[in-house]
């Protein structure tokens, strides 16, 4: 029925009666509800209905009779006539995540809800969006390791193929198969993110209180069918292979897998690997296991038995973004681990820090200052932007670096991490060159062309 005016509030009539014992002297009685006026109740004394205002008045929860009711047991009663607004408090543990508005879910801002770093594939310090073809197991986009047993079977590139990412994303990790390779039983090809144990310690895995997690992600492939992946521990002795189905080719689909936490096995909670999250691109039987259950393995279970091989089809594509691993039984609104680009970059720099010019025209970019220790060596201290996972374990450099002084470049032929100079805050590097003057200061620079860089790694 149409009406004019404000939308009525939701109210309901809830019947009720308060009983009192008259004393012959007491005139005021306390009601169980607040009432607005005398007309909202009916007062009865000795089974005689009383006249509002004349026989009684109301103030809040107090009814006051003009004359004291006579003595009796429950000879005074008040019946409620009007609607009442009732506040309903949900019972503890009854409001689920999905009941909340999606905006509220996002606004809750649970710190580090998502344990995957660079989950939306925005940070690519190593390759800055260029395609790479891994020849050994190596990192591609930040925190994403390309695992393989055969060289050059697939390439990896941020935003490969330039398709439109899923709504809300600007980047994805793109894998392209470079041949039609028939995997053997001992082959594996996969994408791996190793989550540091400090970031999974609260999951309680390996204990009776192991928490359930949900892995969700957006995936798009030129292939359809059953694909696989896994979670496993540092040693590779415990694994949970999972499957998911890609239904339509070249279409972004969001998938989620819920996994009860492992109550056994050894799960590290230090700065070593806590959990390996793996997406299979073609995994042989040696490194596969039955999906949907925790299994004890001798060889790490990278994927589920029978999963589709991406590297088995020349030109096949496999794109991934929005990867989230969170506590709980369902996939919630995607958030990055850091919450902002800067915070996400800092999280990545805990494992890899690249320093270099921002443009190809930025020649003689100063990477840092050094002092030579001899005619062939100079030492340069790099202050790290964030505390790294460990003291750097590798140093990368490229596009000819030189030690520069007074207009002369001394080409650097090797850079190594000094055995005693690597800490989580600083790293002392030894640059090998020739023609240096001992105990003099030099500047380490990108020399003949732009693009020179220095990078320190403390990857898992």
């Amino acid at each position, binding site marked *: 029925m149409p009406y004019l005016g404000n939308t009525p509030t939701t109210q309901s009539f809830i019947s009720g009666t308060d009983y009192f014992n008259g004393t012959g002297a007491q005139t005021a009685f306390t009601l169980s509800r607040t009432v607005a006026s005398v007309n909202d109740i009916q007062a009865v004394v000795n089974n005689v209905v009383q006249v509002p205002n004349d026989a009684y008045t109301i103030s809040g929860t107090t009814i006051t009779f003009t004359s004291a009711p006579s003595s009796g047991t429950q000879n005074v009663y008040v019946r409620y006539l009007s609607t009442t607004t009732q506040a309903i408090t949900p019972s503890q543990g009854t409001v689920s995540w999905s009941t909340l508005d999606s905006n509220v879910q996002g606004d809750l801002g649970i710190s580090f809800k998502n344990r995957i770093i660079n989950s939306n594939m925005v940070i690519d310090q190593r390759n800055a969006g260029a395609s790479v073809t891994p020849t050994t197991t190596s990192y591609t986009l930040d925190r994403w390791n390309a695992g393989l047993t055969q060289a050059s079977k697939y390439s990896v590139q941020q935003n490969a193929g330039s398709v439109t990412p899923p709504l809300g994303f600007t980047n994805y990790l793109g894998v392209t198969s470079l041949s039609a390779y028939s995997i053997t039983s001992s082959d594996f090809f996969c994408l791996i993110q190793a989550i540091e144990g400090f970031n999974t310690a609260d999951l309680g895995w390996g204990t009776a209180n192991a928490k359930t997690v949900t892995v969700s992600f957006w995936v798009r492939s030129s292939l359809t069918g059953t694909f696989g992946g896994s979670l496993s521990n540092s040693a590779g002795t415990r694994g949970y292979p999972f499957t998911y189905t890609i239904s339509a080719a070249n279409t972004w689909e969001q998938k989620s897998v819920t996994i009860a936490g492992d109550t056994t096995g050894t799960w590290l909670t230090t700065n070593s690997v806590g959990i390996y999250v793996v997406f299979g691109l073609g995994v042989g039987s040696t490194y596969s296991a039955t999906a949907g259950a925790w299994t004890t393995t001798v060889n790490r279970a990278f994927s589920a038995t029978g999963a589709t091989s991406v590297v088995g089809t020349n030109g096949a594509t496999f794109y991934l973004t929005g990867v989230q691993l969170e506590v709980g039984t369902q996939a919630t609104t995607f958030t990055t681990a850091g919450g902002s680009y800067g915070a996400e970059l800092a999280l990545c720099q805990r494992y890899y820090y690249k320093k270099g010019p921002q443009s190809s025209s930025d020649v003689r970019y100063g990477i840092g200052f050094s002092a030579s220790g001899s005619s062939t060596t100079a030492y340069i201290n790099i202050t790290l932007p964030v505390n790294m996972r460990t003291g750097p374990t*590798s140093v990368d450099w490229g596009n000819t670096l030189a030690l520069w002084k007074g207009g002369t470049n001394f080409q650097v032929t090797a850079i190594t*991490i000094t055995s005693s100079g690597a800490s989580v805050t600083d790293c002392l590097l030894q640059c090998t060159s020739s023609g240096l003057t001992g105990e003099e200061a030099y500047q380490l620079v990108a020399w003949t062309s732009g693009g020179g860089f220095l990078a320190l790694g403390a990857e898992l």
Partner: protein
Amino acid sequence: MNKIITVKNLAGQDIYHIIRQTGEESYTSFPVQADNPNWIALKTAILEDKAQLQDADGNTMTAEQAKDFVKELP
């Protein structure tokens, strides 16, 4: 290819490092240390015939030479 070189550390001791060319003009290096994950991975790969090793002069070792060599390292 992984080249193994010797570099004197600050104390004047000879320390093995691996230098690997990763691109046309890009390299990576890491020390040969028992707890270095890069070295652990390379040593494993050499022992499984999945990686090769060069000496400091750039001569590629045979698989057996490389295995025997890395077995002596931490």
